Structure formats: structure tokens, C-alpha cells
């Protein structure tokens, strides 16, 4: 049977927690031909993982632990340190934990392609089919608002005449 795989692109700017709905394309529950044994998932490409954002103080508080198997080999690394070493690792571990915990998980991870910046190899870029919507709306900075929007927003209080900032 011909595989109906397609490549979908997610451009990450500032979100991590809300990826859950996007990578569902790996598990092809959205296709009417789904069967547990038929291997018909889609590929998902995620770029700009270097610019991911964590809510709260998770960059300092979240700890990723691993053990090499040797005595004294318990390593604990904060999210900031891990991101410094490998900008792709946080997204990879997050998605690995969100997939169903069965033997399909490894094959689904092979179909996930992560890139820290905008450069993607040519052969993947040519085959991209759909850009999935962003999970989270990125808030605008103060200098990204146009002058009309700033003037349209009402002034809430009037400072006294003789007040010096």
C-alpha cells in the first residue's frame, strides 16, 4: 500500500506547553484509514526550537535527570543548561513524554524532525505540505505597536500638573 505520508511544518516562536495539539499529526487519528497496525502517520517538522519560551521560572526550576548506568552517573541538568548544550533536546523530550507509551513511540519520534533555527535541508523543505497554526499567540512588545494603536488606546488617569517623573 502506498504510504500517504505528508510533511507538516510547525514554526516555533515562543511556546512549549501548547504543542500537544500540533504533533498529533504523527499519530494519524485524523485520517479515516487509520488502523493501529497500518503505518500511516505524517512527518512533522519543527523549526526555531532555539527560541522556545517557558512559562513561570521553569528555565531555572525544571530539572532533567538521567543516569548513565554506571555508579555515580546520576546527572541532573536544569532546563537552561540543557538548552545551552542542545537547543533541540527540550522539545524532543517534551514530545517523547506526550506520545503514547507503547512500541510505536520510537517510530513516531523518527518521523519528527527538529531544527534549532530557520535552516532546513533542501530535500525536507521541498516536500513541506502544510504549515500548522501556532499553539500560542505571541504578545506584542511595546515598540511593536503602531502609533495609531497607541493613540487609540484611552489614557486612564491624568497626572497632576506639577508632578515630575
Amino acid at each position, binding site marked *: 500500500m502506498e504510504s500517504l505520508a505528508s510533511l507538516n511544518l510547525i514554526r516555533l516562536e515562543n511556546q512549549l506547553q501548547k504543542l500537544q495539539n500540533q504533533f498529533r499529526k504523527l499519530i494519524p487519528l485524523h485520517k479515516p484509514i487509520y488502523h493501529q497496525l497500518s503505518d500511516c502517520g505524517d512527518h512533522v517538522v519543527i523549526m526555531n526550537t532555539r527560541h522556545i519560551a517557558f512559562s*513561570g*521560572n521553569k528555565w531555572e526550576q525544571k530539572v532533567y535527570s538521567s543516569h548513565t548506568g554506571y555508579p555515580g552517573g546520576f546527572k*541532573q541538568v536544569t532546563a537552561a543548561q540543557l538548552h545551552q548544550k542542545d537547543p533541540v533536546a527540550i522539545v524532543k523530550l517534551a514530545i517523547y513524554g506526550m506520545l503514547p507509551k507503547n512500541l510505536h513511540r520510537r517510530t513516531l519520534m523518527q518521523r519528527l524532525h527538529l531544527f534549532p533555527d530557520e535552516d532546513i535541508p533542501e530535500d525536507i523543505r521541498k516536500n513541506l505540505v502544510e504549515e500548522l497554526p501556532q499553539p500560542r499567540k505571541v504578545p506584542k*512588545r511595546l515598540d511593536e505597536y503602531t502609533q495609531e494603536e497607541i493613540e487609540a488606546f484611552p*489614557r486612564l488617569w491624568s497626572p497632576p500638573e506639577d508632578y515630575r517623573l
Partner: protein
Amino acid sequence: MAALSVLVYPCRRLLWGLLAGPIATSWARLPARGFREVVEIQEGKTTIVEGRLTGTPKESPNPPNPSGQCPICRWNLKHKYGYEDVLLLSQFIRPLGGMLPRRITGLCLEEHRKIEECVKMAHRAGLFPNHRPRLPEGFVPKSKPQLNRYLTRWSPRSVKPIYNKGHRWNKVRMAVGSPLLKDNVSYSGRPLVLYH
């Protein structure tokens, strides 16, 4: 002798006040005037440095609820703003990023605290790039790895990593957002989660 000492001690206190007064406050007690901009004009050999009064911005007319006590109640924004409403928050901050005092802005205590917390979260999210503190001249800051964050309750430097996350009945949760904004209206219907 005892009488003399009794007389001298209050005099000493008065002298302290008199001496400390003019010297300490001679530059702080200048008459406070409105918002000014400094303009330098050079005419031949004389330079004139002038502080011209710019107009103080006035409150917009017709607030929806004129009987409110603080600006937020007057404009019906009580439980409706968050850290991303930068246009609202920028009206209550100084040029270098600090908050304005409550007696000047006229906010009620709880709203002042909520806005203060939102301003802190917005600064940490990098939404006020032009309100950074002034650095001394010739100071080049070390290049730090730039991490994007949002809804940070605590200052990044003050937080320790959670090495022991605890068992299932006793987890150490990570704080997100602020409990002051617990009563905010949620249009998506999902409950606000303060601890992840």
C-alpha cells in the same frame, strides 16, 4: 549639672535636625514642575540650555463608569487585564521601568499591587525593551544566553532548581503567573492553573 544636661540633650537633637536639614535636602527641595524636555540652543559664544514644559497627558474624556474610585474601576477593566496588555501597563510606569506611586496614579491598593505584578512579569518577558535601567557610561554588559519566558512570578536570579520533585502525593510544583490575578475573567472557559 543635671539640669544643664537635661537642657543640652534636646538642644543637640534640634541642632541635628537643623544641620541635616538644609545640607541634605538643598538639592531635593527644588520646586517640582511638570514634564519638561531639555533644549540646547547655541547663539555665537553663548549656549542657552532651556527646559521647555511639554504638555502633561490628560485622562481621555467619557469613562464608561464615572462613579469609580480608581482608573481601572472607572474604565471597567477590573478583572480583564494581564501581563500582555502593555498599552495599559505602560501608563503606570516611569521611563526607566519603575512603578509610579499609588497616591499619584489614584489606584486602589489591590489594583496597584496587581498592576505592579503584571509590570514585573512584562519586564521579565521582555515586553518593555526601551524601559531598561540606565547603565554607567562605557559599561558593556556580558552577553548572557537569551531565554524567552512569560508569566514568571519570581526573579530568575532568585530561583533554585528543583532537584527532588517529590512523590505523587507530595510534588514540588512550579509557580506560573500570580495569585493576585486569580479572579481574572477567562473567555476560553479553561480554569487558570497557577502551579504546573
